[in-house]
């Protein structure tokens, strides 16, 4: 077991080193939430109540893009390239390898959340997170659910060529409907119901509690946490059931 932890650490460090080496990918990965913040900060032009919506919204989107989107992409690529199959033929335990991929994604989530919180503080006068515990609980829950759902989605992507279309086909509607860019209270009832049943709106709901003052502690967001938990279970079942170490043959 200690040797597995050492192997996980090695695997993680290797993935990190290579992540930074693909400079353009790393750069845009961290620039994207900043661009969104700058853009929407300019659009709402300093209305504090709007900023209170947009900053947690973009934090939620960051969680989803660093885990769900990134893992669905990476796994599709690694599967199609045969990297998964090659690793499977070595004595490296599968859990250690996949754990390294997951930790790599989670590190990007942490960096992006830190960027969003800092930018909110520096540019939009948002204050430090009012409920750090709520923030951490929801980031952890969101990371878990979206990472598992990303792994599950990768099973549904037939080839790497299809990956952008499939992943964006899920990602874009979800961020639009879930109130990343507006307060979900202002949308028609049926859309709001859909949004609240999906995992991103509850995540943003909880992140709002963590980031913005006067939205209450974790006790006020337990329903949201439960919805994320259900998605995590669904994601776990689908991720494990459909998992394949090699690309489908024609």
């Amino acid at each position: 077991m200690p040797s597995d932890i050492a192997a996980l650490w090695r695997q993680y460090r290797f993935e990190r080193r290579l992540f930074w080496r693909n400079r353009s990918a790393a750069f845009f990965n961290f620039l994207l939430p900043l661009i969104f913040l700058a853009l929407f900060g300019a659009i709402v032009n300093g209305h504090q109540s709007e900023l209170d919506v947009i900053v947690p919204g973009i934090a939620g989107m960051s969680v989803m893009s660093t885990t769900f989107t990134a893992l669905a992409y990476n796994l599709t690529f690694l599967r199609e390239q045969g990297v998964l199959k090659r690793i499977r033929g070595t004595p490296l335990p599968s859990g250690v390898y996949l754990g390294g991929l997951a930790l790599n994604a989670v590190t990007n989530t942490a960096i992006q959340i830190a960027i969003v919180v800092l930018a909110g503080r520096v540019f939009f006068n948002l204050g430090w997170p009012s409920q750090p515990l709520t923030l951490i609980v929801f980031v952890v829950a969101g990371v878990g659910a979206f990472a598992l759902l990303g792994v599950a989605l990768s099973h549904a992507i037939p080839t790497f060529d299809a990956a952008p279309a499939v992943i964006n086909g899920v990602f874009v509607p979800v961020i639009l409907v879930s109130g990343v860019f507006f307060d979900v209270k202002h949308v028609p009832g049926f859309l709001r119901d859909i949004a609240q049943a999906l995992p991103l709106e509850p995540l943003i709901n909880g992140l709002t509690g963590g980031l913005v003052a006067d939205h209450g502690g974790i006790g006020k967001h337990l329903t949201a946490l439960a919805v994320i938990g259900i998605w995590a279970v669904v994601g776990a079942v689908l991720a494990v059931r459909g998992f394949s170490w090699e690309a489908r043959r024609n």
Partner: protein
Amino acid sequence: MASTQPAIEVRDLRKSYGELDAVRGIDFQVARGEIYGLLGPNGAGKTSTVEILEGYRRRSSGEVSVLGFDPGQRTRELRARVGIVLQSSGIYSHATVGEVVAHFASFYPHPRDVDEVIELAGLSEKRDERTRTLSGGQRRRLDLALALIGDPELIFLDEPTTGFDPAARRGAWQTIRSLRELGKTVLLTTHYLDEAQELADRVAIIKGGRILAEGSPSELGVGGGSRYRVAYANGDGEPTVIETDDPTRLLHELTGAALERGEPLRALSVTRPSLEDVYLELTADA
């Protein structure tokens, strides 16, 4: 003693995918230190057989032992003693050759020296280059380096030289022969006859999920009911071919008749069927 036990034992191996029977009762053994070739056309059941031995697929029935382990159990210890070169597999494209080989070395309990393996694979001058800059042949050599880094006893090579130019093939063959000198066991699949003839101690010809013939490349050429082929030009200068089990008598008659006529026997040749002839005969679609 463990080391006298065969490296691979396969008994009545079968594999079905739904309705399709890909492997229909295969038996063979590979001794330690042997290079054993599985030869057959695409879809013959080679890859299914090898992937069961590698632990990638589950068998439908039959018995399989690899270095004394059941590969279906996916034991970590077995994977540490086996090296696998797959037909095509990607690798960290932003890492250098040296980094990838060193990283893979960390998976194994007793890895070989990283530089030594890179040297063996002929990639020394590419050591600090990123893997995505490698040519197709260099990438195959990296595959081989990654399969050898754990110092395996048994190496699976799945069509190791497909897509190589002739010079690169000779180089790869040299490397594979050097594995024999190191005492390694090699299971080689190929659809190149010359490759099997050149490298393998024994060959099994597979088609339709069954082994049609097995033996050393030269035995396969001679045995299996195959005959000598005597070719010459007859009195009118027309090429004539006679197949016979008894070339001595036939040659005596032919040369005797030619001497009586006072003519030379032109274009005379005596050949035995090559592995290629046997292969084509066995794998021809009836």
